[in-house]
């Protein structure tokens, strides 16, 4: 936690131009999303291949409510979170009865449906061409410029890390890890496992929605591809590469996979290949992910 705070505080000294700020801001936003997703996948052991859908719903809630109805951005963001929370709650009950491949398929289907809806309902969403989103503002002050976005994102990431670490280090966090480790053991110990599965699913969806709203305002333009299957996979890959059940792994995973396209910008079309290769190599050589593997090495040394 302190290390992350130090990195966030010190980083501006090393960022030569707005382009680098932009990359770091995107890393921060992805990290917030991935911390939430890691609670679901890494800690509670429930896969989701559709979470980009929730991210997109948050983004579109902000885009539509601020752009068309003139809502204050913070209210639109809150409405998006509430709406996504309710949707996730309704979906979670039937979906989380499933396990393994079935759960993966159901969440995949959920993401695809969201993608289709966002593409088809073009009178609201602008269809495949996307829509522009007004700048973020609070109390009449507009948030603009990479530096300001940097500090806001940094502060929100710290908040997300703090909240997530608190959850993990609590009876709720133990219940989540226990239902991952042995569902029957958790049940006979008094853990209402379906309640906790729904809880973490909703929590991660709400975090996704909030991140989506932020991204929409920051980038200023959204298209349905935010909710694409590929984006969901990308987010899951961040969890896996950084490390399942590792909060700081989420930040590392987000950093690596957000920088990847930048590093490979000279090799058009190579991104996907590199992306697949990283996922495969992680699964083969570090199935626990980067941060837990390195932490174990350090402890042994």
């Amino acid at each position, binding site marked *: 936690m302190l290390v992350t705070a130090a990195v966030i505080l010190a980083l501006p000294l090393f960022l030569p131009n707005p382009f680098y700020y932009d990359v770091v801001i995107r890393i921060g936003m992805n990290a917030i999303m991935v911390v939430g997703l890691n609670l679901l996948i890494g800690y509670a052991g429930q896969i989701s291949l559709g979470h980009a859908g929730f991210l997109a719903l948050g983004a579109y809630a902000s885009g539509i409510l601020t752009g068309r109805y003139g809502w204050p951005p913070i209210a639109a963001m809150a409405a998006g979170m509430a709406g996504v929370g309710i949707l996730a709650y309704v979906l979670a009950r039937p979906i989380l009865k499933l396990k393994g491949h079935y759960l993966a398929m159901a969440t995949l289907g959920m993401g695809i449906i969201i993608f289709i809806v966002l593409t088809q309902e073009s009178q609201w969403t602008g269809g495949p061409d996307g829509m522009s989103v007004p700048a973020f503002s609070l109390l009449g002050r507009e948030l603009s410029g990479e530096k300001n976005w940097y500090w806001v994102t940094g502060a929100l990431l710290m908040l997300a890390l703090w909240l997530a670490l*608190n959850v993990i280090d*609590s009876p709720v966090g133990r219940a989540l*890890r226990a239902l991952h*480790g042995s569902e029957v053991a958790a049940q006979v*110990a008094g853990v209402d496992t379906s309640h906790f599965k729904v809880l973490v699913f909703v929590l991660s969806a709400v975090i996704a929605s909030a991140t989506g709203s932020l991204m929409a305002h920051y980038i200023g333009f959204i298209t349905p591809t935010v909710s694409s299957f590929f984006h969901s996979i990308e987010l899951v890959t961040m969890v896996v590469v950084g490390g399942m059940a590792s909060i700081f792994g989420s930040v590392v995973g987000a950093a690596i996979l957000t920088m990847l396209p930048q590093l490979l910008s000279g090799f058009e079309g190579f991104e996907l290949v590199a992306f697949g290769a990283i996922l495969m190599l992680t699964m083969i050589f570090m199935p626990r992910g980067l941060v837990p593997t390195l932490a174990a090495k350090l402890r042994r040394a």
Partner: protein
Amino acid sequence: MALLEVRDLDMVFGGVHAVQNLSFSVRPGTIHSVIGPNGAGKTTLFNMITGLYKPTRGAIYLGGDAVTAKPPHELARKGMSRTFQNLQICFNMSALDNVMVGSHLRLNQRLMPAMLRLPKLKKADSACREQAAELMKFVGVGQYVKADASQMPYGALKRLEIARALAAKPKLLLLDEPAAGLNNTETKEIDELIQKVAHSGVTVVLVEHDMKLVMGISDHILVLDYGKKLAEGTAEEIRRNPDVIVAYLGGA
């Protein structure tokens, strides 16, 4: 009044009649053993009592309340706790956290206080952590307080499950073959542990193959054979029961 009462219980899996027309009751404060050859239906019986399986027929009462087919976490709330024949350990957690899962119901389980790290919750959580460490010492795995569950040997894991079950402060504790796979010394230690637990006021239902252990500590023994009750009584009565001698002890 009986703490646990089972009435006309049946469990059918496809063609297998795992438990048939079984009735018995367990008095509070006793050690009640269930014995029978492999496949007799003992684990199935435990799974029905603890809500993991829904009985095909019959009823289960806990402290006089009908609890048939209630979900396991509700039964835990009513004071039921158990261990498993095939270990159910969370290997993604530390040994101590495994035990603390047992105290789940005694802590505030809501998200908001957890997320905001409310001091009251933190305090209760730390107190539970200390109690869990004490429990690990009590069951004889004190040396693993700082270990991950995945670093512990089989015998220690069996005790860790008992510690987790005790962390719930149960009224009724069901132990499914706690001494299976243990050597003589370890079995003797488990024997003493079960007696200590029973002395502390917990009612114990015990499934165990080790006859010396069962005959020595049980107040009451139920013998199952192919899912049916073959005999019931004190250790002495069971030892002398001709049906048991023929069917179970193989005439020995």
